[in-house]
């Protein structure tokens, strides 16, 4: 910490401590509330009961499935688009950025109202066409594809930003051209030369999408599906202690998943960003 004034040196731990307290106190209080039952002492009853409660596993698995599908859709959509934008039309970047930020401005309520309207309109007008079956399949309660599509839109602002930051750190054009002059076709150049250097950005985009999907309540509830967040709210009404236990558990699940993702995308020695110095002697 050379070069810092004593004041800064003292402030750093203080700020860190305050922020830590802000996050940890409610968490600790929640944990204490779930394990310390008046008159019975320390018990993990609330947690063991969760496993047995109807809908726990199905809703958790549904949420995980939705998250995986959303991450796939978002990355498949955004990565080629972002790279193409960088190579072919850098001037359009502000436009794409604005479009990708739109979901932040539209409130989920309005968004879900729009989706609801389309879902109602569709079957009424398309009942005699093959599209009718598509609408039915979209809303299959076992795996509501419509939620994946909605979440993909909602994740756009976060995923786009994460990817854009990653792309900024590598010289995409030079990497692609270098790969192409080494005999790689356009797609292979992207997959073998660019993507490995975006590992960090892809991970970040996946993290953010995962966190969003696991915690999303409004859209799922209003469309009548029952992923994990909706289930938590449903059970919490009746059993106070267990509902808090479920919240703590869902936090832990999210953390574990994020750690697992980070582990899977672990750093390789070469995964540092490319130096892209352009000299002008």
């Amino acid at each position: 910490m050379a070069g810092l004034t004593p004041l800064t040196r003292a402030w750093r731990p203080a700020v860190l401590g305050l922020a830590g307290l802000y996050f940890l106190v409610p968490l600790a209080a929640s944990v204490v509330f779930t394990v310390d039952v008046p008159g019975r002492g320390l018990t993990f009853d609330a947690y063991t009961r969760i496993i047995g409660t109807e809908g726990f596993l199905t809703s958790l698995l549904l949420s995980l499935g939705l998250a995986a599908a959303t991450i796939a859709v978002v990355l498949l959509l955004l990565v080629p688009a972002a790279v193409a934008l960088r190579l072919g039309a850098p001037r359009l970047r502000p436009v794409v950025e604005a479009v990708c930020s739109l979901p932040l401005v539209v409130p989920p309520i309005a968004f879900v109202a729009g989706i609801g309207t389309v879902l109602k309109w569709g079957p009424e007008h398309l009942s005699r066409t093959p599209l009718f079956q598509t609408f039915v399949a979209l809303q299959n309660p076992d795996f509501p594809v419509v939620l994946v599509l909605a979440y993909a839109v909602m994740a756009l602002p976060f995923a786009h930003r994460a990817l854009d930051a990653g792309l900024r750190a590598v010289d995409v054009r030079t990497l692609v051209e270098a790969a192409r002059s080494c005999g790689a076709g356009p797609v292979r150049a992207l997959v073998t030369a660019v993507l490995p250097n975006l590992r960090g950005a892809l991970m970040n985009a996946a993290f953010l999408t995962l966190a969003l999907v696991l915690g999303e309540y409004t859209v799922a509830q209003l469309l009548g599906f029952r992923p994990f967040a909706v289930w938590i709210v449903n059970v919490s009404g009746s059993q106070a202690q267990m509902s808090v236990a479920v919240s703590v558990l869902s936090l832990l699940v999210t953390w574990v998943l994020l750690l697992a993702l980070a582990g899977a995308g672990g750093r390789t020695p070469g995964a540092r960003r490319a130096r892209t110095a352009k000299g002008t002697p």
Partner: protein
Amino acid sequence: MTPTPTPTAATVEFRGLRRTFGTTTALDGLDLTVAPGELLALLGPSGCGKTTALRMLAGFETPDSGSVLVDGRDVTRVPAHRRDAGMVFQSYSLFPHLDCVDNVAFGPRMRKTGRAERHRQAAELLELVGLGDKGDRYPHQLSGGQQQRVALARALALRPRVLLLDEPLSALDAKVRLTLRDEIRRIQRELGITTLFVTHDQEEALSTADRVAVMRGGRLEQCAPPAELYGRPATAFVAEFVGTMSRIPGRLHGGTVEVLGHRLPVDGEAPAAREVDVLVRPEDLRVTADGACSARIVATAFLGATTRLTVRLADATEVKADLPTHEAAALAAGDAVTVAPRERPVLVAARPA
């Protein structure tokens, strides 16, 4: 461990290449032929179209009209990855996620060469560029010069018929630049590979290339061996772009020009006007101390064996003259001197308005 030379060095031909980007014309009808095994430097100020021409040969740009031929075959529309051209870029272009061996083996990997075979080739090429012991290093662990060496090895890995160098030395510091350019020349000779070398550094072009093509405004000004380019520049632009050149006012008399009180034969075309500028190299001016003369030394710059004097003539024209350092030792800024041209044919150019 010398890799086998490229089986057949290719002839490269640019025919009437034209390309505009918006309102700027990058190439305005470029015609140029590169002989098999030749190292040709494309030299010119920035924006002269040299990089565009190179990128057209690489397949990264398409001309509006005209064609690129390799060994007589029109490759204008062939995609970059089927061009058989290895390229070294100006910016560091190694794949950051691969070590040196895998970087060099990237091309063979794309061509489905077996792992053992491509690693053997890569090791051989790294040996060739003097980095045989750095195979397991990642790009960020190498210096700029080392990175460009690896990039050169990578460009050679597919035994390309043409090697393209896009200002590969411009990001490096002066000393590394000198050694690496000699290295490039040595390797190019050893492999006998047809090479196009884009640079804006005239010294680099003159010292490495078999021929230098000077470009301006998307057109070829002159393409000649370095000595000819320097000694017999075809145009005033080439004369002034290559090496140092002073403009001294002179007056035409038929086939001769009067300059600094001397009459010299005119080399090449002379403009229609009588009042012209005479183009003189620093080594073609003699400077002697002469208290009575009105020319004065403005500055001296020590260059080692020679010293460059900047002299202001009576009419306020400033000229550069190179003197052996031991002769220049007697002179200092502020001294009155006589400046005289050596007796040899000179180039003349129209006086700028």
